[in-house]
């Protein structure tokens, strides 16, 4: 039996779908006994959601006022204390997990398996390196705790309908005061979350201005899609950073990804190669995006988008 602790991600109101994807990854380990730990100021409602994820046996609530914001320096010593008695500690490969988990691993005296994309055995995994240009199989020292971040684009979310036991746990861990949360600025929208959306419309440098970029929003809303952007579009200020898709942005796996005016640099393709279907619209027929697209259309995006929108409304 392998006791697996998953550090759940949430915003106090909802459990991030990345958590259910970590559960799927954990269930791929034979004999997995899965616990989700939730750290927060008040995790009552998110604990109920996490308990409904199929395959989870126990949900641990670690509530204290200092846990209101997920600061790695405060969370890590608590997770390290929790880790005793577990063979594996998993977190999602999101900005939350990527910040936190290496700090946990260091406190436990181990290196981490980053971006775990496939389970080959309880201590044998596959992960990408060189922006996904190579995939390595790594074998970890089985005598130590295995800490990993799970590449969420590689796993489907576990189903609902579970009924895990919820336990409240208080940890006697002193927390540092050297790190303080100030605030978060986000362009909150009513559109689906980019990381978990089934449909994504994404724009690149060819949109040519922040003003023009907005035409994607209309198309996205018609499709019920999230909006993404290439690094070039974000660097040029057409779209905010949280929309960036690619090696250093978000790695996503929607049912359909519509790349508009994106040439398809390798770093961008790294972020989308798990998409079920890729559609590319670009005026340059030689653009590398067409090498990976299931459907390619060469033409002027400023004519194509309105035309496509019209057909969607018809």
């Amino acid at each position, binding site marked *: 039996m392998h006791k697996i602790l998953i550090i759940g991600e949430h915003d106090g109101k909802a459990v991030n779908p990345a958590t259910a994807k970590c559960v799927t990854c954990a269930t791929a380990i034979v004999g997995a006994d899965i616990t989700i730990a939730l750290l927060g100021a008040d995790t009552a409602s998110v604990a109920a959601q996490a308990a409904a994820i199929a395959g989870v046996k126990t949900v641990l609530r670690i509530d204290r006022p200092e846990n209101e914001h997920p*600061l*790695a*320096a405060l969370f890590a010593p608590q997770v390290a204390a929790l880790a005793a008695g577990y063979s594996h500690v998993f977190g999602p490969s*999101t*900005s*939350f997990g*990527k*910040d936190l*988990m*290496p*700090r*946990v*691993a*260091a406190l436990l*005296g181990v*290196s*981490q398996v980053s*971006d775990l994309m496939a389970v080959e055995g309880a201590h044998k995994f596959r992960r990408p*390196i*060189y*922006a996904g*240009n*190579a*995939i*390595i*199989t*790594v*074998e*970890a*020292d089985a005598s*130590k705790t295995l800490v990993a971040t799970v590449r969420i684009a590689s796993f489907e979310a576990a189903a609902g309908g579970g009924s895990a036991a919820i336990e409240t746990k208080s940890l006697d861990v002193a927390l*540092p005061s*050297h*790190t303080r949360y*100030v605030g*978060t600025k*986000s*362009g909150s929208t009513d559109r689906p979350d980019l990381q978990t959306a089934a449909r994504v419309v994404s724009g690149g440098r060819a949109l040519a201005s922040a003003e023009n970029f907005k035409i994607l929003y209309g198309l996205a809303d018609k*499709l019920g899609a999230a909006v993404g952007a290439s690094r070039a579009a*974000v660097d040029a200020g057409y779209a905010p*950073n*949280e929309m960036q898709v690619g*090696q*250093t942005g*978000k790695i996503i796996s929607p049912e*359909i990804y519509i790349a508009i005016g994106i040439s398809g640099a390798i770093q961008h393709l790294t972020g989308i*190669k798990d998409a079920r*279907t*890729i*559609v590319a619209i670009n005026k340059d027929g030689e653009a590398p995006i*067409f*090498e*990976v*697209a299931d*459907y*390619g*259309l060469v033409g002027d995006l400023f004519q194509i988008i309105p035309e*496509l929108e019209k*057909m*969607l409304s018809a």
Partner: protein
Amino acid sequence: MQKIMVCIKRVVDYNVRVRVKPDGSGVMLDGVKMSVNPFDEIALEEALRIKERVGNIEVVAVSIGVADTQQQLRTALAMGADRAILVQTDTAVEPLTAAQTFLALAKKENPDLIFLGKQAIDDDANQTGQMLAAIWERPQATYASKVEVGDGKAMVTREVDAGLETIEVDLPAVVTVDLRLNEPRYVKLPDIMKAKKKPLDVTSLDALGVSATVFLKTVKTEPPAQRQKGVMVKDVAELFGALKKKGLI
């Protein structure tokens, strides 16, 4: 603020298309161009800008790697670092060993800030900065897109999935940098000449009292599964029809 340490890694150049060896034993690195990890270049640039703004700060560039890593440290010196330290080793170290090595250097150098790139573009591990902060028992501010240094503390804006998060950390602290923090300067020829005269010390893991641990063994390296090239459609109507037929829209 007196000293900033910047950790840099020698990696395969950003523009090289990395290929897997046919026998699956690794990637082809012979004769491939090597450079400073691009994120580490941004880290160094930020340190230099703080030095230019505040004045009277020593910037120390440090690295772990083979003897030829001196080339990348010379680049760092040419960009403007005051001196450099190479911890020379022929075997690649894991992130935890790297963090332990940087900790040993931090204990000698007592920097107010340690900058690193958020990840190296070879192993894409994204661990070393966080691990260093953990074992140094100091704050970490990862994925920085803005750094403001004040009296004994720093305000750091971080690129997170939800947008931009700001945290305040007491110094000393570890900051790992993201792409949009700055645009690194180009190195000019006179700076390259000047860099040759700057001090570059070479030490070893042994001398620092660090023993390299191997926790993860790479047993196989494979090329990624390739996506098949699809079809080109001639117009919007054909695209719409195809997507409709597949139930995608």
